[in-house]
C-alpha cells in the first residue's frame, strides 16, 4: 500500500517536472531567435559605437573603446534629439486625442459594425508605408486641396505652405501611427465590463463622472501601451521627415540613416543609435512607473 503510494507520488513528481521542462522548451525558439537577431546585433552595435572614428570604409575600423564618439554624437546632434522627442511627443498626444473617441465608439457603440470598423482601422496597412507617406505629399502639396482650403478660410497666410513644414512631418507621424494607438485602446475599452458602468450610475455617477471614475481608469493599460507603441517608433522615424519635410525638420533617424548609408561613418551612426535607445528606455521606464500600470488589474 505504502509502496504503491510512494510510487504514485514519484510519478506525480516526475510528471510535474516534465511539465515544467515542457514550459521551458516552449521558450527556446523565441529565445533563440531573439539571441541571434536582437542580442547579437545589439552587442555588435554597441561595439561599433566604440570604434576608432578615424577609420573608414576603405581602411577598416579598429575597436579602440573610443567613448569620445558619444560626446561627438551628442554635441553635434542634440538639437535633432530634442526635435525628435518633440515631434514624437506631439504626434503621440494628438494620436491619443483622436484615437480615444474612435476606440470608445468602436468598443461601446459600434454594435454589429464593430468588426468592419476594426478592419477599416488596419486597412491602411494593406498599402506600403512608403507609398502612403508619399501620397501625403500630394495631399499637402502647395496647389493641393488641403492647402487650398486653408488658404480660403485664411488659416494659412497667402504664401504659406504645409509641405516642408513641421506640421507636415507631425501630421505624417500621426497618420502613420494612429492604428498603433487605436488598437490597444480598443482592446482595453472592449474589456471594460458594462455592468461596472451600470453600477457607477446606480451609485450616483452621471455619465461623465462614471467615465472619469470607472471607464477611463480601466482603460489606462490601453492608454499606456498605445502611447508606447506610438511614441517609441515615432522617435526613431525618418521617412516622414525625409518625404514631408526638409533638412530643417530632420529628426535623429535621418542623421543615423545618412551616417550609416551615405557617409559610412559607422561609429557615429552606432553611438547615435545607442543614445536614442538609452534615452527612450529611460523615458519609458519613468512613464510606466508614473502611470503605475503594474497596479492595474
Amino acid at each position, binding site marked *: 500500500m505504502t509502496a504503491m503510494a510512494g510510487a504514485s507520488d514519484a510519478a506525480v513528481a516526475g510528471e510535474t517536472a516534465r511539465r515544467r521542462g515542457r514550459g521551458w522548451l516552449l521558450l527556446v525558439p523565441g529565445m533563440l531567435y531573439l539571441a541571434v537577431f536582437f542580442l547579437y546585433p545589439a552587442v555588435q552595435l554597441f561595439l561599433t559605437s566604440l570604434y576608432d572614428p578615424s577609420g573608414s570604409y576603405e581602411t577598416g575600423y579598429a575597436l579602440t573603446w573610443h567613448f569620445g564618439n558619444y560626446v561627438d554624437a551628442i554635441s553635434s546632434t542634440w538639437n535633432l534629439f530634442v526635435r525628435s522627442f518633440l515631434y514624437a511627443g506631439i504626434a503621440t498626444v494628438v494620436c491619443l486625442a483622436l484615437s480615444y473617441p474612435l476606440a470608445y465608439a468602436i468598443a461601446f457603440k459600434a454594435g454589429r459594425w464593430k468588426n468592419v470598423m476594426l478592419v477599416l482601422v488596419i486597412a491602411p496597412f494593406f498599402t506600403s508605408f512608403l507609398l502612403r507617406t508619399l501620397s501625403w505629399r500630394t495631399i499637402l502639396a502647395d496647389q493641393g486641396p488641403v492647402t487650398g482650403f486653408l488658404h480660403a478660410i485664411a488659416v494659412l497666410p497667402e504664401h504659406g505652405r504645409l509641405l516642408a513644414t513641421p506640421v507636415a512631418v507631425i501630421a505624417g507621424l500621426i497618420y502613420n501611427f494612429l492604428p498603433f494607438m487605436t488598437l490597444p485602446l480598443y482592446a482595453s475599452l472592449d474589456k471594460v*465590463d458594462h*455592468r*461596472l458602468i*451600470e*453600477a*457607477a*450610475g*446606480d*451609485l*450616483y*455617477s*452621471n455619465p461623465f*463622472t*462614471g467615465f472619469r*471614475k*470607472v471607464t477611463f*481608469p*480601466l482603460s489606462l493599460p490601453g492608454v499606456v501601451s498605445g502611447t508606447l507603441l506610438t511614441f517609441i517608433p515615432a522617435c526613431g522615424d525618418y521617412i516622414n521627415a525625409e518625404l514631408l519635410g526638409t533638412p530643417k525638420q530632420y529628426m535623429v533617424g535621418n542623421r543615423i540613416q545618412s551616417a550609416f548609408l551615405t557617409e559610412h561613418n559607422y561609429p557615429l551612426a552606432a553611438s547615435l543609435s545607442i543614445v536614442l535607445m538609452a534615452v527612450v528606455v529611460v523615458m519609458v521606464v519613468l512613464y510606466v512607473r508614473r502611470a503605475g500600470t503594474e497596479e*492595474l*488589474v
Partner: protein
Amino acid sequence: MDEVSSDRRDLHLERVTKRFGDFAAVDDLTLTVPQGSFFALLGPSGCGKTTTLRMVAGLEEPTQGRVLIGEEDITGLRPYKRPVNTVFQSYALFPHLTIFENVAFGLRRRGVKDYKAKTEQMLELVQLAPYGARKPAQLSGGQQQRVALGRALINEPGVLLLDEPLGALDLKLRRQMQIELKRIQTDIGITFVHVTHDQEEAMTMADTIAVMNHGVIEQMGAPGDLYENPQTTFVANFLGQSNLILSGVTDPAGDTVVVDCHGQKVGLDAARAHTTNGQGWLGVRPEKIFASAAGTEDHGDVNLLTGGRVTDVSFNGVSTQYLVGMPWGQELMVFEQNTGRRAPFRNGDGVDLAWSRSHSFLLDAVQDAHAGVITPEDAE
C-alpha cells in the same frame, strides 16, 4: 434617509409593462412594497423578475406604467438620480479601487463630507474592517458579496435592490449570508427587494413573496400563506412540492367542500377551495400525509385515501420519501420523519394515506398540473 419627511416611502409599481419587441417580459404589473419590508420576487429564469428590478433601478425604462417611491414618481429619472441602490448579481465591484474606495463611492459622488467615518462604520457592519486597503480580486466570493452589499447600503437608499445576490456562493456560505442579510435588514430597516429563483432562499428571508411567472404575479403573500394555501398549480409546484389529484366537486356548499377523489370522498376548508364547480386539482403537500399500514387507520375526522401500494422508498437521513401508487394509477409523494416509531415501509407494502382537512387545497382544473415543477435542468 430623509429625516425631515416622515411620510411613508413605500415602493409602488402601477400597471408596469416592459416589452422587448413582441415579447412582454413584464405584463401589466401592479405591486406595493411597504417601507421597511423584506420583499422577494421569486420565479424561474425568464419570468420577468430581473426586468422588474431593473425598471426600479432605472436601468430599463418601462414601456407603460409608473414607478413611485412614496408620492414621488421616479419612472423617468436617470439611475443616478434615484434613491435606489442595487446589489448586482455579478457584484460589479470596481476592480481598480480598494474595498474602502468601493464602499465610499456613492457617498463621494454625492459630496458627503464625513464619508470616511461612515465608510469605516459600514465596513464594520459588513465585517470587512481589516480589508479596506485591499482590491476586490484579493477577497473571497463571500467577502466580495459583502462589499457589494456595503457599497449599496451605505447610501441609505429608499429601496435596496438585490439581484440574485447569493447566486454565486456555495450552498453553505449562501445559508450563512441569508441569515446575515436578514439580520442587517432587520437592524437598519431599509426596504429590501430581493430577486431570486431559489424558493427556499425567498422563504427563509422575505416577509412577503411575490411569485412571478411569464411576466405576471401568480400569487403574493407571506411565505407561510403561499406554501400552505397556494392558489395556482404553478405556486403549488414551484414552492416546495405538491401532490395534485384530479377530483370532482360533489358538495361545494358549507364550510367544508367535499370532493370525489377517484371514488373516495375527501373534504377541505371552503377558504382553501379556489374553484368550486366541476373538477379541480386536489392538492396536499407530501409532508402533510401520514402513511399507515392498510386498514389500520380510523377514518374519523381526517381525509383518508385507501388502496395505496409503496412503489419506491428513498431514505435520506432525517426523513424517508415514499412513492405510493394509487388504484387510479397515479403515484403520490409522502415524506415521513424518521422518528423510528415504526419500521419503514418497503416496496409493495399496502398503505393508506391520511391527512387533516385543513391541509388540502383545491385548484382550478384548467391549470397545468406540472406548471412550475422544478426539473433537474432548471436547478441551476
